């Protein structure tokens, strides 16, 4: 099946945060009102920006990021979307011990909250710092959460043939949803237009990053200006540990059991052949 993707056009976004609200509402994260004493939430506060709540949380999967850049004495007010980028080379899928995070047949990274063990490896591995978790530090009881591309069981918009909630609600059509190929073509067109208008650094983020993201950003400037990692990578420790050390462990464990079994058979025979003549002498 053709892979799907979201195309986010930062230059059309008005940062109305309608997507943020629609995401909470559709995914039933809307009942959550953070309080200062609630360590699992991120308190919305007046901190001199429309960016609120100030960070993602297990109940906030999508947040608009506001960046102010000083350019020749003029303020540029840039908007980006902060949510799961749905990577092809997804670090979180790589480190997830039991397939709770997995690639949906349409390419993006789906998440089955029921089976999450709360190990938090995805949180440490994500190059975009997206997954968040509730966590009891003493007992270690924890659950991660992140954008599921609106495929949460029971709330699955995608299999119903609908676009994700954030896309549905976007008034200026800064968010589009469709076949990934089409989204890339559309995004490239937009970037060409921006370059023609004098935005020389205009860039399509996610076309090639991490094997291709399933949330693609059309940006009017370099990714780092927006606070996005340039050339993000799956951490080497995550690869070494899952792809090298664990398989070595399985092989060593199996070889040990087989080796001990063989030793048992050989040694038993040797022991018997040594005991037999001794018994005969008696």
């Amino acid at each position, binding site marked *: 099946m053709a892979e799907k993707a979201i195309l986010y056009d930062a230059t059309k976004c008005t940062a109305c945060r309608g997507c943020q609200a629609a995401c909470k509402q559709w995914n039933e994260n809307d009942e959550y009102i953070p309080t200062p004493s609630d360590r699992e939430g991120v308190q919305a506060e007046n901190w001199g920006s429309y960016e609120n709540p100030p960070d993602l949380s297990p109940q906030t999967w999508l947040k608009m990021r506001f960046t102010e850049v000083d350019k020749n004495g003029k303020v540029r007010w840039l908007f980006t979307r902060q949510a799961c980028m749905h990577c092809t080379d997804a670090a979180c899928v790589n480190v997830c011990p*039991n397939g709770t995070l997995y690639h949906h047949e349409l390419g993006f990274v789906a998440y089955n909250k029921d089976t999450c*063990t709360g*190990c938090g490896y995805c949180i*440490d591995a994500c190059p975009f710092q997206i997954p968040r978790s509730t*966590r009891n530090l003493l*007992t*270690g*009881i924890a659950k991660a959460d992140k954008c599921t591309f609106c495929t949460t069981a029971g709330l699955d918009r995608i299999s119903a043939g609908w676009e994700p909630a954030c896309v549905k609600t976007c008034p200026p059509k800064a968010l589009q949803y469709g076949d990934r190929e089409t989204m890339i073509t559309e995004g490239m067109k937009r970037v060409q237009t921006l370059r023609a208008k004098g935005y020389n650094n205009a860039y399509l983020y996610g076309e090639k990053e991490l094997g291709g993201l399933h949330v693609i950003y059309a940006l009017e400037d370099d990714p780092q200006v927006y606070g996005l990692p340039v050339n993000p990578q799956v951490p080497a420790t995550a690869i070494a540990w899952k792809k090298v050390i664990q398989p070595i462990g399985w092989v060593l464990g199996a070889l040990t059991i087989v080796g*001990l079994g063989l*030793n048992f058979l050989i040694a038993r025979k040797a022991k018997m052949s040594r005991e037999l003549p001794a018994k005969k002498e008696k």
Partner: protein
Amino acid sequence: MEQEVERYRKPTRILHWVHAGAFTVLFLTGLVLFIPQLGFLAQDSWTRLIHRIAAAIFIIAPLIYIPLNWKSSWKGIKEAFNWGKDDFGWLMAAPGYYFLANEEAMPPQDHMNTGQKMWWLMVIVFGFVFVITGIIMWAFKTVAPPALLQWMVLIHDVAFIVTGVMFFVHIYLSVIHPLMRPLRTGAWSSMARGKVSAHYARSHHAKWYERITKGGEIK
């Protein structure tokens, strides 16, 4: 009645079994994150909770034992680091012994033979590795830099593989290997009852037997 000599005092035996039990639980609750097919057992964090309870026992048990048994603790630690030419000889002769039951080439051993010392040294070294990396992942999960936490997972994993494999070898060589039978005389007996037969002590730990009997018979 055959004469017997004491090999492990009761507090030492209790520590051994408490630690062995804790390690078994830690091993199994760690294994569920290591084998993807078992991963479903870990869901909802229950294995992590059990892992932490066992970890607390794993840490606290020696912390209680050591101050109450200073002399044995110190003697035991010195023993782990006391290596000589008979250890080399043991390593050379071990394949012949463990595969072909060839006892003649085995050099005389002290209180612990070379294999036991290797395992005991690993328990000390990897015990620290487990506890340090584990505490960082437990207490500093939300504040430590992600890269550090990933290294802790990786090191914890390597320690798990090495000690897990040697844990099998330890059990095998103590109670399953054909030469360890019958169980009532040797290694099993030393940890279960604390005593081994004088004959076993003389044939398997000649240097130690010599020392405790001052060259003569048991008092």
